[in-house]
């Protein structure tokens, strides 16, 4: 059994051959879905039958807004990706050698920043996965 501390599970992305780790992240999630196609006919006595359909997914990330982030990229960099419509490679999972992660191409579909009185300013973004989603293993160093 290898239960994971959520702090180890990060969201990285690769753009123009460089891999970045998002800074200030508090939470990141991935949702992968499969939408099977209903091929049930009248003569199946009410038993539903499906064939494989579309697979897809989304990722979300939220964190502390730091426009001067130096330990990784932050909300402003993600905004640039959204503004330019850049397709990135997204990596959701652990980062150490021999550990696994989800990999998919993705577009940033939204970003929001919330600044409350007497509270820390936070941001969040949503990613739409595009194309195949795979499970990869971090290289052994």
């Amino acid at each position: 059994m290898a239960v994971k501390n959520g702090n180890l599970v990060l969201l990285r992305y690769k753009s123009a051959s460089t891999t970045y780790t998002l800074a200030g992240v508090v939470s990141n999630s991935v949702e992968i879905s499969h939408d099977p196609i209903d091929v049930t006919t009248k003569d199946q006595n009410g038993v539903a039958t499906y064939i494989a359909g579309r697979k897809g997914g989304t990722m979300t990330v939220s964190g502390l807004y730091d426009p001067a982030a130096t330990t990784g990229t932050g909300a402003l960099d993600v905004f640039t990706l959204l503004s330019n419509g850049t397709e990135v490679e997204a990596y959701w999972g652990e980062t150490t050698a021999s550990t696994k992660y989800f990999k998919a191409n993705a577009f940033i579909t939204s970003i929001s920043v919330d600044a409350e009185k007497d509270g820390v300013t936070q941001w969040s973004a949503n990613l739409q996965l595009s194309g195949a989603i795979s499970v990869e293993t971090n290289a052994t160093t």
Partner: protein
Amino acid sequence: MSLERVIFTKGTAAGVTMYPVIAAANASYPFCIYETSGNSPNHSKTEKSQLDITTVVFTVFAKTFQACKTAAALVRSTFDNISGSQSYANGTATEYYTIDFFRWDDESDSGFDYETEAFTRTLIFKVGHNIGN
């Protein structure tokens, strides 16, 4: 510790007799004790907190109800809504500590202390700062 020194320095400069946690046995009235009662850090997965929110409780003691109210009002006006770089005395040196916000959050009569025969009033503030700074 720097937050406590800022509180002591600003309160004293405003004319409030300040004590951390417990007053001196021979304290003259009115006086105010102050203490921190909790911290809420804002960590991320990969970075330490850069904004900690601390609860600071002031308890004012005075020999009359009106004097207690007056001293409490002075505490509120001294600390409510201060921010930025604050100076404090550290021995003979003057040092500085940054306060992100210092907000009056609640205030109430906390009764009459029969042992000291003093009225008391409690003020609660929320303070944003960076403890690790």
